[in-house]
């Protein structure tokens, strides 16, 4: 199976420490072996999605959530703005 732990951790935005690298590699390897079984499966004739069943939509009626409760959850706040990292 062609993947590198390095590339996958970058794509997943995960920093991996030296200590855990070996353990993660072992787990990824074990999961990869399970995946390999799928190589023998006949691929579906055309792509499809398995969607949840049923039909559910809500009405266009506003419900006010107490936004102060959400602001309390935020890590860093400045004048009700969430203070985030630099975006450059």
């Amino acid at each position, binding site marked *: 199976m062609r993947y590198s732990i390095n590339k996958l951790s970058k794509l997943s935005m995960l920093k991996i420490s030296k200590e855990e690298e070996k353990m993660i590699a072992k787990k990824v390897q074990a999961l990869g072996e399970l995946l390999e079984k799928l190589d023998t499966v006949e691929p579906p004739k055309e792509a499809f*999605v398995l*969607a949840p069943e049923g039909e559910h939509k*809500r009405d266009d009626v*506003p*419900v006010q*959530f107490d936004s102060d409760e959400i602001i309390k959850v935020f890590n860093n706040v400045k004048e*009700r*703005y969430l203070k985030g*990292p630099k*975006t450059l």
Partner: protein
Amino acid sequence: MEEIKVGLEVHVQLVTLRTKLFCSCSSDYRGKPPNVNICPVCTGLPGSMPALNRKAVEEALKVVLMLNAQPYETSYFFRKTYFYPDLPKNFQITQYDKAGGYPLAHDGSLKLSNGKTVRIERIHLEEDPGRIYYEGSRATARYSLIDYNRSGIALIEIVTAPDMSSPEEARDFVERLTTILSDVGINVKDYEGALRVDVNVSYAGGERVEVKNVTGAASVEKAIVYEAFRQKTMYEKGIKVVRETRAWDEKRRITIASRGKEFEAEYRYMPEPDLPPVTVTESLIQKVKDEIGGSQEERYRELISDGINEELAKKISSDKDLFNVYEKIKFYEPSLKQLAANVLANEISYLIKRYSIKNLPEDVSGLAEILQNYKMIPDHESAVAYLKKWMDGERVKVSLKTVSAEDLHDDIMQIISENYDKIKNLEYSKKFEFLMGILIKKFGKENKKVLVEELTKVLNKTK
């Protein structure tokens, strides 16, 4: 000049909705303090789940039908993964036409002013991200400030084929689209940033370059002019244009290379497991068709054929609400249509703006009453007062008691004598105010002008 090819991805906020696409937060975010219209869903808190706004599908279908596109019977939501601080889940819920997915609709078209047809490849629903602000400039700010009021607002994305071959055609497309949107009530012009365009430009058969986030028709034209020129210059110097994403700098009027390259391959699309597919039935399409009614062009033609002049017809046809009232009055009493057109285009339009009135009353009998007695209303001020009363949803009865100056004289004299004890020691202005109160009660506000005139005369004489 070698040929350029332009394709557009137009993002339109469904501004007619009251709530967001996947949660019940109010969609009315402009001018609001930051982070007031937020909940666990649109801030991506752990455990929250999306629930689709029924009306969003209906509003999107209006646009689909106006653009002659074909709705899919079943369409799916997908997760499009990319990391960015304005995207609370780090994936956007959108629709996708690959990997087994179907968008809301496909294969539409829009005719440009020059008669050329631009093909529309697909139309789909998706959620808007939040907004990022910077103190000072983006380059120097030490942190970002994020407001999620916009996060989760319902968008439709309209994707065209690369059928436009000049900046002007692209501008025309956006302008025509804006008109079509307003035909179904989606007045993007009234909402800042409600229409945003990603422009794809390729020069002389070269790689296409995507210019992201261009707001408004005029900027679309400018961005393409610049980008075509940039690519032409490279072509002439023999430099290969690479496929990339650029950003439009509105101030400097240039496009700039974006640092983070985003390729389709990295979006890792997958079906959204928390949302059932969207089904569009024949009866839903019929319902939406019934709601749409005609286009501005159709409305304009009808007004002209009614003998309404071009200026009034243009004004009334551009606003579906005004036109609906016109239609109702015409049905109620055909002889009133000319006067109705006048009043709608002038007084009523003025009042709508002046008092930011959102909806006109369904019942037009009050307006008909005003129009039928319009000539007998003594002055313009009173007429406007009557109209405002109707627009506020109050019952309107035009007082037919026309008051003549002679009759008034006797009435005023009688009132003065009845109240002589009360007013004899009052100053002129207080005396005037007191008597006007009684007179208005007796003869109505609409006669205010003649009452003032006559009372002044009488008081001046008896001084």
